[in-house]
């Protein structure tokens, strides 16, 4: 990992002899495969000698460690680590060979090595196949004479092993000046600040406006005018439910909002509109999708090394939608996703947050590849966890202490250790009886399949082809199992969840390399938040305790991070414009007091997201017009002071859903399994089958319009304008179909051409066309009809209305 250049804040100066190992140049050696160590020359050994501490094997000379690194470790890595190390899926005989201490301690059969005495060492006996036979036959087979000689010599030498020293790691306790580090705004406690007084009370709807108006005044800018009622209604619809109002709804709300007729919108009507929209199930669909970006939600794994299959991922997606619709308090929402399995079955669905993440594996069992894969998987868990809930880039501390934020490498492995004791699996949503019945039905099918496999394996072992007789038998068994399979009922409902597998602390992986375990990192929360003395998480994996720590009201990050995200999705720009990085390299809030006021109000409301929507949307700030202002623009082109509402280009979900909505084709049924080809479907875009890799038609379509690749948590969509989007708009059958449907709808609703155009503008843009626009339309429609059977001029015109920028912007 290359880390940003910049001042190393908070970091006490390093002793010169250690300065080198943190630089990329040396990491390069350490991170790459151990097998190349010998060839890469002596710098690695030099590096190691810097790291070697007393507790390894103090009496050995540097050459001994060189011998270990060049001759011994490669053998251990290649032949033993598969079953006996921290990268092993399950450690055999409780015996590990990845540190000197574990070798001396040994496994169920006692110590493996007696330093200096090969004849008394179980390890040597085993590789000589005198008592135990190791490595067992199978993929690793036996060691050759030279290799046995190397290990024997090594034990004779006293089993030199360069342990990583305490002082080399120092893991945080001494590296940061914690007092100074704590001064960063985001680690400070949340303070409920009283909103500043303002002079023109008339234009203030709630405390949000007091903060914003105060800021505008200081910047010498004016408070913006309110948006027109029709613009506001459309904005509220798109924001809360991701769809436009129907013409009837638009008219109804415009009348209700404009009741005062003084330019200001009627407060009661605004409140009613917000409540009405929050009550719709489409609200959860819209905001659930925004959450799923953070979750890097996918219906399938990423193929090749990320083979996870998640046929029921959609149940987690629906759970998110339901949780938002029922306004589940955010602290509960978080708790369920980190540790729902410790609450109850229903809550366990939330742990799909982690269970549906990429789980990398190696495709050939090579130890280096296996370790790398495991390390990447844990990185996904820590990264998604820390960025989503805490706005922290903890993954920066995977190979070394975080260079900018006070997150020591040990804290990374404290959290990674929690996920190292958790694994993904299935939780049935039905009673044990149903599961048993299903297993009964499946049993004969599985037995037949095992029989087939056994016959094939036997033939393989005997290095002969399957005989004709066996082949006939196999085919008969296969036919039978296929028949049973077809007759058997579909599998019961289940969800992909996380469960605990153990409760062991993990060791720091030195420079991110799991094959080089360092100090133990007790499972616990971050020092940056909880201080030096912290609770050791010992209940199972520790996830429940982790969840408690995250939503503890004293944690200054969780509430700030979520209110900032909600704000961003209402305004297009967040108060902290790096919504998943509140660290020192992130942006400072544009309105720090407002952020804190929102966060504390949010917690006081019982962490109610719906109540937060109401507070934000009731403000005059949210009701502002997006009109351009030359003077304000030149003073604050980035709109940090919120001198107007930001106009936003729709995301792909809102755009596609709106296209189907205005043509009266949108299928608003809720939930269920994903739709493989969303381009051919009329369901909401939320229900598209999302994948991490393959360019299915659905993925290709979504990514054309900036849908994030769900390999990692995405805090904010990019918004690209690329030519291929216009190829889709002008040439795709999807757009041609919508144009046809819109044309028909308009023709049904009005008898004259002008009436149809007017209705089109009302339906699509929420306004009436100008004279110029009517003329342009008339001129186009009077043009030559196409000679072939393609779309006629009217359909072409409708396609243009749907492809126009105005349709794609929320203002």
């Amino acid at each position, binding site marked *: 990992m290359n880390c940003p250049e910049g001042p190393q804040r908070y970091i006490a100066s390093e002793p010169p002899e250690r300065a080198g190992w943190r630089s990329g140049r040396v990491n390069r050696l350490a991170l790459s495969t151990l097998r190349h160590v010998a060839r890469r020359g002596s710098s690695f050994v030099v590096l190691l000698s810097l790291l070697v501490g007393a507790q390894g094997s103090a009496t050995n000379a540097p050459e001994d460690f060189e011998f270990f690194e060049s001759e011994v470790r490669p053998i251990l890595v290649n032949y033993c680590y598969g079953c006996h190390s921290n990268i092993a899926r399950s450690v055999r005989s409780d015996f590990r060979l990845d540190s000197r201490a574990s070798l001396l301690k040994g496994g169920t059969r006692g110590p493996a090595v007696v330093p200096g005495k090969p004849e008394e060492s179980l390890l040597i006996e085993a590789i000589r196949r005198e008592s135990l036979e190791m490595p067992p036959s199978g993929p690793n087979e036996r060691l050759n004479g030279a290799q046995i000689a190397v290990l024997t010599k090594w034990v004779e030498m006293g089993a030199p092993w360069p342990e990583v020293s305490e002082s080399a790691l120092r893991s945080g306790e001494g590296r940061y000046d914690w007092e100074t580090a704590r001064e960063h705004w985001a680690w400070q406690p949340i303070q409920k600040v009283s909103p500043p007084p303002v002079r023109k009370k008339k234009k203030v709807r709630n405390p949000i406006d007091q903060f914003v108006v105060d800021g505008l005044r200081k910047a010498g800018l004016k408070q913006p005018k309110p948006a027109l009622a029709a613009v506001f209604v459309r904005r509220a619809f798109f924001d809360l439910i991701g769809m436009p109002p129907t013409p009837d709804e638009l008219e109804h709300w415009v009348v209700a909002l404009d009741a005062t007729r003084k330019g200001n919108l009627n407060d009661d009507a605004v409140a009613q509109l917000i409540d009405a929209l929050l009550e719709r199930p489409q609200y959860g669909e819209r905001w659930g999708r925004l959450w799923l970006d953070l979750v890097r939600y996918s219906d399938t794994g990423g193929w090749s090394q990320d083979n996870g299959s998640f046929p029921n991922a959609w149940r987690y997606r629906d759970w998110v939608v339901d949780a938002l619709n029922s306004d589940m308090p955010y602290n509960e929402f978080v708790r369920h996703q980190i540790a729902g399995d410790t609450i109850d079955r229903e809550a366990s669905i939330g742990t799909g947050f982690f269970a549906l993440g990429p789980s990398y594996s190696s495709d050939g069992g090579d130890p280096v590849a296996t370790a790398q894969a495991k390390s990447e998987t844990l990185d996904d868990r820590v990264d998604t966890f820390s960025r989503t809930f805490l706005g922290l880039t903890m993954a920066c501390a995977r190979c070394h202490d975080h260079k900018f934020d006070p997150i020591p490498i040990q804290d990374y492995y404290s959290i990674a250790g929690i996920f190292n004791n958790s694994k993904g699996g299935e939780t049935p949503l039905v009673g044990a009886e149903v599961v048993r019945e299903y297993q009964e039905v499946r049993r004969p099918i599985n037995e037949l399949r095992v029989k087939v496999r056994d016959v094939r394996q036997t033939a393989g072992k005997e290095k002969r082809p399957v005989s004709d007789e066996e082949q006939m038998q196999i085919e008969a068994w296969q036919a039978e199992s296929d028949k049973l399979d077809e007759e058997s009922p579909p599998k019961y409902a289940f969800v992909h969840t996380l469960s605990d597998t153990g409760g062991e602390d993990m060791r720091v992986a030195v420079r991110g390399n799991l094959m080089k375990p360092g100090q133990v990192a007790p499972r616990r929360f971050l020092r940056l938040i909880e201080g030096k003395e912290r609770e050791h998480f010992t209940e199972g994996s520790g996830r429940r305790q982790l969840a408690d720590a995250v939503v503890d009201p004293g944690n200054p990050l969780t509430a700030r991070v979520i209110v900032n995200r909600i704000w961003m999705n209402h305004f297009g720009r967040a108060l902290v414009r790096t919504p998943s990085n509140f660290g020192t390299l992130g942006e400072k809030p544009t309105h720090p007091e407002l952020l804190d006021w929102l966060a504390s109000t949010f917690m006081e409301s019982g962490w109610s997201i719906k109540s937060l929507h109401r507070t934000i949307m009731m403000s005059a700030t949210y009701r502002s017009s997006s009109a351009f202002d030359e003077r304000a623009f030149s003073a604050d*082109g980035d709109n940090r002071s919120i001198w107007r509402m930001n106009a936003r280009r729709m995301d792909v979900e809102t755009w596609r859903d709106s296209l189907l909505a205005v043509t009266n084709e949108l299928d608003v049924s809720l939930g269920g399994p994903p739709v493989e080809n969303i381009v051919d479907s009329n369901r909401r875009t939320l229900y598209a089958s999302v994948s991490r890799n393959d360019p299915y038609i659905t993925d290709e379509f979504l990514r054309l319009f900036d849908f994030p690749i769900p390999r990692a948590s995405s805090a904010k969509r990019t918004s690209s*304008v690329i030519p291929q989007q216009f190829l889709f708009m*002008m040439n795709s059958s999807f757009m041609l179909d919508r144009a046809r449907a819109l044309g028909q709808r308009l023709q049904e609703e009005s008898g004259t051409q002008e009436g149809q155009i007017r209705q089109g503008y009302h339906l699509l843009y929420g306004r009436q066309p100008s004279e110029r626009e009517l003329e342009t339309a008339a001129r186009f429609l009077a043009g030559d009809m196409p000679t072939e059977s393609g779309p006629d001029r009217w359909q072409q015109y409708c396609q243009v209305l749907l492809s126009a920028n105005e349709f794609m912007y929320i203002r």
Partner: protein
Amino acid sequence: MSHHRPSPPISRRDALRKIGSGFGNLGLAGLIAGTAPEAHGVLPSAAPLAPKAPHFAPKAKHVIQLFMPGGPSQVDTFDYKPLIAKHAGERPAIVDKKSLRNTKNGLLPSPWGFKQYGECGKWVSDIFPHTAECVDDICFIHSMHTDIPEHAGAILKFNLGHLQPSRPSLGSWLCYGLGTENQNLPGFVAMSPKAQPRGKAANWGNAFLPGAYSGVYANIASMEPGSILRDLKNQHLSRTEQRHQADLLAELNRFDLERQQQDQKLESSIQAMEMAFRMQFAVPEVFDTVDESKSTHELYGESDFAKGCLIARRLVERGVRMVQLSHSVSGYDIAWDTGHGDILHHETLARTCDQGIAALLKDLKQRGLLDETLVIWGGEFGRAPTSEGKMGRDHDHYGFTVWMAGGGVKPGYTHGATDEFGCSAVENPVHVHDMHATILHLMGLDHERLTYRYSGRDFRLTDVHGHVVHDIIA
């Protein structure tokens, strides 16, 4: 958001003044990538794919990667090791390495003869007779090595410098760093005659870079110019009719622009639409090779791969930054892996690509394009000199061969060496990261400065690794 020096935030007005020609030309090239997730509120560069200045004078302007997924055997192609035959069946300590399948057999001599070619006298296997004619233009790197002997990870390592598919590909980095020269064509085109290489879209993906930098996969399977890109062709309207419709859309968008006082990406979207309009005709034109002379067609020959080679030349000729052409002869996504069971399959594979490769080199040279185009040939790793089964070879990531031609590398040159049996890189080893650093260097980019801030970190193609192999640079 870029590797260039951070510039202070500029107001739109400043931006307009700097561009100097008012609203009409803002976002002239028409492509607007969004601000990066954590970009700092600076106006996005008007055109992410517009040509950008490199860090220093480049040797090459384009890259054509001829990717051989599955791992071609070095000792049966370009890394001549006569000693293998002498010690056939033996297993000297130097080759007694753990392979993926842990094969324990002895040395297997190459079933093919080798001959010397060119002024440089390079030994080349009989299965690559055409490429052999070009050795005086080629720079061989025999000392490549990579991290693991597994396809999926090693393929990604080769194409994005990382074992997992979570990083941007080489071509995406190049487009991010340099933009591209022809705004009517994508900057990075990936293609393959039959099967996408293992890992599929990740091999040309943008990962966390803005979407504009993603490689575009061109479907050359059917060689149907109209279906190279999805929705490229309008099925119903004539070009004139399309023009009328596009004009109408542009007009409505211009009305909107006036109403909104030019303050969003509206102008750039008008330009992007114009570019889409032109792409509809520019793209099929590149992929339709009817205008090539008879002698050119004869030079390349008939294979699907050769057609890809010809299109690669046409793409770089028109300014495309990078082309990744992956070999495949069937639906199998790691074609060269058939070497496990029987190394003789290599002959079939070579036959389907050899003439096309040589034709590409000759054609580029003849047109004066070879100097500015870096051609790279190779797979994700090599194959062991020892046997697997009777006639197969297991994976070998300790040493393998990649060759480059044109684009500022030394012609008729050999860099590094494997041991006497061709198993491991022993002389001047070149890791995949070093290869990437060198490719970026040849393109005028410093691999340590080409960074992208994402998720609180500055990412690089070479991560924290990589050294430029100055030795191979002419």
